[in-house]
């Protein structure tokens, strides 16, 4: 199916990567060079086939390894179509206070890149998983002074069954080495599009992206306290012509907003801080893991239902999806 040969060692997550047959839903035969660049054939892209996708985020290891496993699995039960797993970095410059605090809890509990990979391997979920982290952790992993770069990290990520990356501090200009490594191992690189992104940069971003585009719903940092802005619809309109799923994130916290965003033309929604707040609340009040997991599942279900509702209200897109 045109998958990169080096993907074959992904067999440990075969169940989650069995969407290949849906690749050509658009009816177009992608050219050889665009095959990976536009994400055709990727399980991340396939997560957006059919109904609007719900893509939740949690910081891995928050507040501890075992609870975090239960929390991520609860998201899948709540209807997640793909999950962004945050690998905590000490300087998370794109995160608001909610996720900053999650990062501190996770690091204090001993999370490291190696533990992160173990976590991914331990997870019992069937949806594609995206690693969200900052470039220095990718850059340092497994290398030495003579041979540093993102390749060893990407190789290991592929081996444990991750499907792609979101790297908030890596703009298109610096993304060459990571894109190359992703191509080599058949992983997706998801780019963030900001309200301030000019049209001339859009093309460049779309060019290096695969899987989906992360459309930032407003300026600023992550956080549920500031709602998406009017700029979202504008961004979606500008992106309309590009054949890659658009997932909107930053500030979405309930089913109502999810419906609104999807009806404005998004192919999916990304929700982080609102979910992390549930983890934080459970940690502060020392709640049983099962209770917190149930709360996460409930909000996930609400968000997924909202996205679905939005999809029913949405004007049909030109590609018929």
């Amino acid at each position, binding site marked *: 199916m045109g998958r990169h040969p080096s993907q074959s060692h992904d067999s440990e997550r075969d169940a989650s990567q069995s969407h290949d047959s849906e690749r050509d839903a658009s009816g177009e035969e992608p050219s050889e060079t665009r095959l990976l660049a536009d994400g055709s054939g990727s399980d991340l892209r396939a997560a957006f086939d059919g109904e609007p996708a719900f893509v939740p985020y949690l910081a891995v290891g928050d507040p501890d390894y075992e609870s975090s496993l239960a929390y991520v699995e609860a998201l899948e039960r709540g209807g997640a179509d793909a999950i962004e797993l945050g690998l905590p970095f000490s300087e998370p410059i794109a995160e608001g206070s909610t996720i900053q605090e999650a990062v501190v809890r996770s690091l204090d509990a001993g999370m490291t890149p190696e533990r992160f990979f173990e976590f991914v391997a331990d997870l019992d979920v069937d949806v594609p998983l995206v690693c969200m982290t900052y470039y220095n952790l990718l*850059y340092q992993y497994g290398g030495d002074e003579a041979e540093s770069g993102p390749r060893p990290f990407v190789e290991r990520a592929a081996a444990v069954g991750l499907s792609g990356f979101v790297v908030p501090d890596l703009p298109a200009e610096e993304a060459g080495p990571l894109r190359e490594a992703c191509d080599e191992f058949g992983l997706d690189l998801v780019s963030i599009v900001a309200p301030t992104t000019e049209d001339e940069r859009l093309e460049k971003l779309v060019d290096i992206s695969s899987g989906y585009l992360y459309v930032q719903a407003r300026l600023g940092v992550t956080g549920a306290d500031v709602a998406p802005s009017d700029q979202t619809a504008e961004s979606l309109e500008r992106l309309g012509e590009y054949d890659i799923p658009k997932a909107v994130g930053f500030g979405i916290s309930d089913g109502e907003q999810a419906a609104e965003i999807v009806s404005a033309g998004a192919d999916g929604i990304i929700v982080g801080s609102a979910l992390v707040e549930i983890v934080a609340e459970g940690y502060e009040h020392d709640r049983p893991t099962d209770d917190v997991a149930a709360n996460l599942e409930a909000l996930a279900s609400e968000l997924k239902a909202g996205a679905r509702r939005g999809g029913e209200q949405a004007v049909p897109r030109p590609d018929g999806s």
Partner: protein
Amino acid sequence: MSDAEGTTHDTGAPTRDPEPTPETGATRERVGDGKFGDYGGQYVPEALMPAIRELEDAYERYVLGNEDGFRDEFRRRIREFGGRPTPLQRADELSQRYDTDVYLKREDLLHGGAHKLNNALGQVLLAKYMGKERIVAETGAGQHGTATAMAAAHLGMPCEIYMGERDIVRQRPNVFRMKINGAEINEVTTGRGTLKEAISETMRDWATTVENTHYVIGSIVGPHPFPTMVRDFQALISEEAREQVLDQVGRLPDAVLACAGGGSNTMGAFHHFVDDDGVGLYAVEAGGSSLAVDEEEGVAPNSASLSTGTEGVLHGARTKLLQDGDGQIVESHSVSSGLDYAGVGPELAHLVDEERVQPVNVDDDAALEGFHRLSQREGIIPALETAHAFGYLEEHADELGDLVVVNVSGRGDKDLEAALEETEQRDIDNAPPMDELTGGL
């Protein structure tokens, strides 16, 4: 992705605008792509990229191209408001002590008491030319914050300063100075509450307010064009020093010494000497209490990123960093909070790799001794940051040649309390007895 994209890293080819417009083509070549060897670059969230581009454009037009007379106005204001040029003074006592001609570049005499104003005034003025309405800045020890607050008051710009909660406690006098100049202080409580958290928090503010706000970064760090632009503003130091030493002594120095944290006074003092092969350039880092990194605690009891750091990406640039084996950034610590930063300017990192700049360091005790020595023998109380350069001079004067220029990057008034406290805790040979020091207080 295009081929050009993929090979950028290896060939040093331009990362963008393969065909510069005629108007900017000439200066683009001078600015380059913000890479110093493999260091530098623009590792920032996408939301900031347009602002970075806008700043690059403004830097090229106003700072390099003198559009609308920017450079003339900057030079006039840094002279009239700042007090430039600062003197190059022969240190008679030290010269005799080391049997070497020692000259002091007196940046401590610049308005505000440190070299920081060169950059702060330049950037606040540039923000005005760009039509920005608001200034944000980070500060660690408070020197950059006070310089930015002064420049903003001088030019009538609203100004907010991000400062770690621990630094706010440690640097109260500077907090008052900023407030008196009309700046708003935003306390940063994340992480360990020092400089690197303050930088992260300022970047978050900027990511939200980028359309009307300029971020006045305090050193030659961060994404391109900051390292190059800040260096250009600070290069007034070596521009003057080089002329002054030729004028006063008739020859170039054998060595230039400057302390190095992020590296702005360092590159400022070195820049116009870089092409003079016979001039040794010594970046003196804070060796703190030990050169090791405590991985367990995530702390480096030093800030010697040039001497001991490894390559990585922090706050928008690839450079040498103090980090653990996983790539988590560690907290740096030395007797001088102004040097405490886990990274260093990418240009300095590159010049060290090229062996043009010697990275050296002295420990906390040597810095404190340097502080007391300059105070007693030359009548100049230096900042604890600056004192590191004099610590190195004491230990290595006989290896530095016959004519040495030391950059006195700042005065020590802000450090009196810390210096006395640290002196009391240690056995500092050349300090006056503590009861004499504190008896009258």
